[in-house]
């Protein structure tokens, strides 16, 4: 009974033989692509990324391969909003990339779970650590181990569409009332057809993780905390936290100065709207200028700190925003930790970091040499980011933090903004669920 159809004459035979041939050829091609004689192969995953940055990275990897004979690097671009799922699926199987470039706050989650390689065990770590600004390096630490090298410092700031601000004759807001007022004035019907076609503010609502990153800066500016220092109590439902959510809720429901469709937006749509002058403000990080520049060359933007509550204006220069960082880490199960460490150092050494300064790649340098170099003065927004990073706060280093932010904090906050719950109720319910999660009840 086996292989009966294969011997049948005529067309049938040809169809099946053809299909089989394609399959075999394909498989052979696949094998030949995946193999190179005796070289150590390292897989490197990067999530998201601007064209210029990807191009730079690929060039850098090319020179790495030339200077480190016997190591081959396979670089892949992965989906930014699926980091956790993709990595967990692979890490739990014991596979996955050797080197990965994601948020530093995964140090707690993946480092704590034993998925990340503690890089402080490499003999030259004490030398390497001196390259970096100390408080940025600290973000890669969880408990006693360091789980990566800083690759880009991120502080969340307010990005303003200069053209629209100039048209209205206003300057970027510093306090919440100025912020609300500016958003209100920038929300208008520009072509006189009776329909609003320009909005004051847009928020990345379609990405559960990304939304939390854009809302929490307002919480911090208001003086709210996410968790207590001992990581045992959820605190984001404090009066300060609720007031921050109230601000955004009022702007959406009372002023109508936030784009109505923001709940569906990915970063794509934010940039589309910003570049076509349909929105005036967004909460973004260092990547945004490059995105705008790629789409609308020469478009002018202001980047300023996220506004503070009116009664905290005295602390405008010192109020914390959300600090985030991207870091390069090594998979704990890698077969080639030494080679992976070589790659890490090569991608993040001072010379590489200088390129980020010189070529304005949409990432903020993290080494002292680069930040103190004369060229640093020429990089757009760098001084603002360095200033904000000086007193920004990272997410609390709790292993469940990312899950809480995207799966509890975001949905409840969004419910408040669209009016399904009051800000107070939303934050209280979210805090209750988050508390249950950190106590291990869920």
């Amino acid at each position, binding site marked *: *009974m086996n292989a*009966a*159809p294969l*011997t*049948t*004459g*005529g*067309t*049938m035979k040809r*169809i*099946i033989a053809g*299909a*089989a041939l*394609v*399959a075999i050829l*394909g*498989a052979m*091609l*696949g094998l030949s*692509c*995946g193999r190179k004689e005796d070289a150590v192969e390292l*897989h490197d995953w990067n999530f*998201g990324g601007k*064209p210029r940055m*990807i191009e730079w990275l690929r060039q850098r990897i090319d020179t790495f391969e030339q200077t480190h004979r016997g190591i081959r690097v*396979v670089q*892949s*671009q*992965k*989906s*930014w*909003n*699926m980091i956790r799922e*993709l990595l967990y*699926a*692979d890490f739990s*199987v014991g*596979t*996955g990339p050797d080197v990965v470039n994601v948020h530093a706050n995964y140090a707690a989650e993946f480092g704590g779970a034993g998925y990340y390689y503690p890089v402080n065990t490499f003999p030259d770590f004490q030398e390497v650590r001196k390259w970096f600004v100390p408080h940025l390096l600290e973000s890669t630490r969880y408990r006693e181990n360091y789980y990566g090298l800083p690759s880009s410092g991120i502080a969340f700031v307010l990005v303003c569409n200069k053209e629209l601000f100039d048209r209205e004759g206003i300057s970027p807001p510093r306090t919440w009332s100025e912020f609300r007022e500016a958003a209100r004035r920038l929300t208008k019907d520009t072509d006189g057809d009776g329909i609003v076609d320009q909005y004051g503010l847009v928020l990345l609502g*379609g*990405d559960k993780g990304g939304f939390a990153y854009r809302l929490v800066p307002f919480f911090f500016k208001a003086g709210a905390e996410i968790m207590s220092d001992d990581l045992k109590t959820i605190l984001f439902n404090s009066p300060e936290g609720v007031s921050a959510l109230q601000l955004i809720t009022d702007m959406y429901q009372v002023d109508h100065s936030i784009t109505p469709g923001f709940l569906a937006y*990915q*970063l*794509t*749509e934010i*940039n*589309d709207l910003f*570049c*076509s002058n349909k929105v005036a403000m967004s909460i973004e990080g260092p990547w945004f200028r490059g*995105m705008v520049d*790629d*789409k609308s060359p020469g478009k002018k933007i202001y980047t300023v700190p996220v506004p503070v509550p009116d009664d905290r204006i005295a602390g405008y220069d010192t109020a914390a925003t959300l600090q985030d960082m991207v870091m390069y880490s090594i998979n704990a199960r890698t077969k080639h930790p030494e080679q992976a460490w070589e790659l890490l150092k090569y991608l993040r050494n001072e010379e590489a970091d200088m390129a980020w300064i010189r070529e304005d790649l949409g990432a903020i340098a993290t080494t002292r040499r680069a930040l103190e170099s004369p060229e640093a003065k020429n990089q757009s927004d760098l001084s603002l980011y360095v200033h904000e990073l000086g007193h920004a706060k990272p997410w609390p280093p709790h292993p469940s933090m990312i899950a809480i932010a995207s799966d509890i904090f975001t949905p409840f906050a969004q419910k408040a903004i669209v009016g399904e719950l009051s800000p107070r109720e939303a934050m209280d319910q979210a805090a209750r669920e988050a508390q249950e999660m950190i106590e291990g009840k869920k």
Partner: protein
Amino acid sequence: MKKILLLLPVALLALLVLLPFLWTVSTSLKPLTEVNRYPPEWISPTMSLKPYGDMFFYLPFSRYTLNSLIVASSATTLTLFVGSLAAFAFARFRFPGRKQILLVLLLSQMLPGASVIIPLFQLLKTAGLYDTHIGLILVHTAVLLPFVIWLLHGFFSGIPTEVEDAALIDGCSRLEALRRVILPLALPGLGATALFAFLGSWNEFFFALILTNSDATQTIPVGIGLFVGEFEDVWNQMSAAAVLFSIPPLILFMAMRRTFVRGLAAGALQ
């Protein structure tokens, strides 16, 4: 004249139902600066094929295409082989348990992909088949089988038993009869079924999304699916990938539509 009057609504309807796809084609030919233009334009002088070249920058679509070809053609071959054996058994034999087995096959027809994915994920993990072509081929074959058996059953039943009896009298065994008589007669049906299987595997997204994870195994739908909303600015490149990826199934379908439709009707209305 009357013919044209009748034709007009038919053509208009075609435009209407193809609207989403045509809009994607239009977008795939525009430069980025045109993509976000309002009011939107269907055709503009700046159109070019450039996005079709640019789309390879972010993701290795040529590698994905190769993966898709490997998986879809292997799954098709395997499904057809296993499926015709089973369909032949149902069409030509009366045996105890026939009804129960048909029922189980019917059950897997209502297979909730989401429901079986967790155990499958764990199973492939332990078998070392997670993130491999073979793993995905096996899963696709299993998913496609019930419907393929159903279709083939229809074709085989449509072939008069007398033909086969003649072969048996000539001294062939039942299996030789399948090979020498039934399969050639069912050829159009097999072609249609192969098309169905190929399309099913080529377009499949859910299992491929969860059971593959690296560039060496991921198929095009996964590449496109992950592209959505991810790489800013590039609606035109996304559209280009979507259009390019739809061309092989469209050609195949157009070439084999008649047999396919006849087969479907025969299989379904038996």
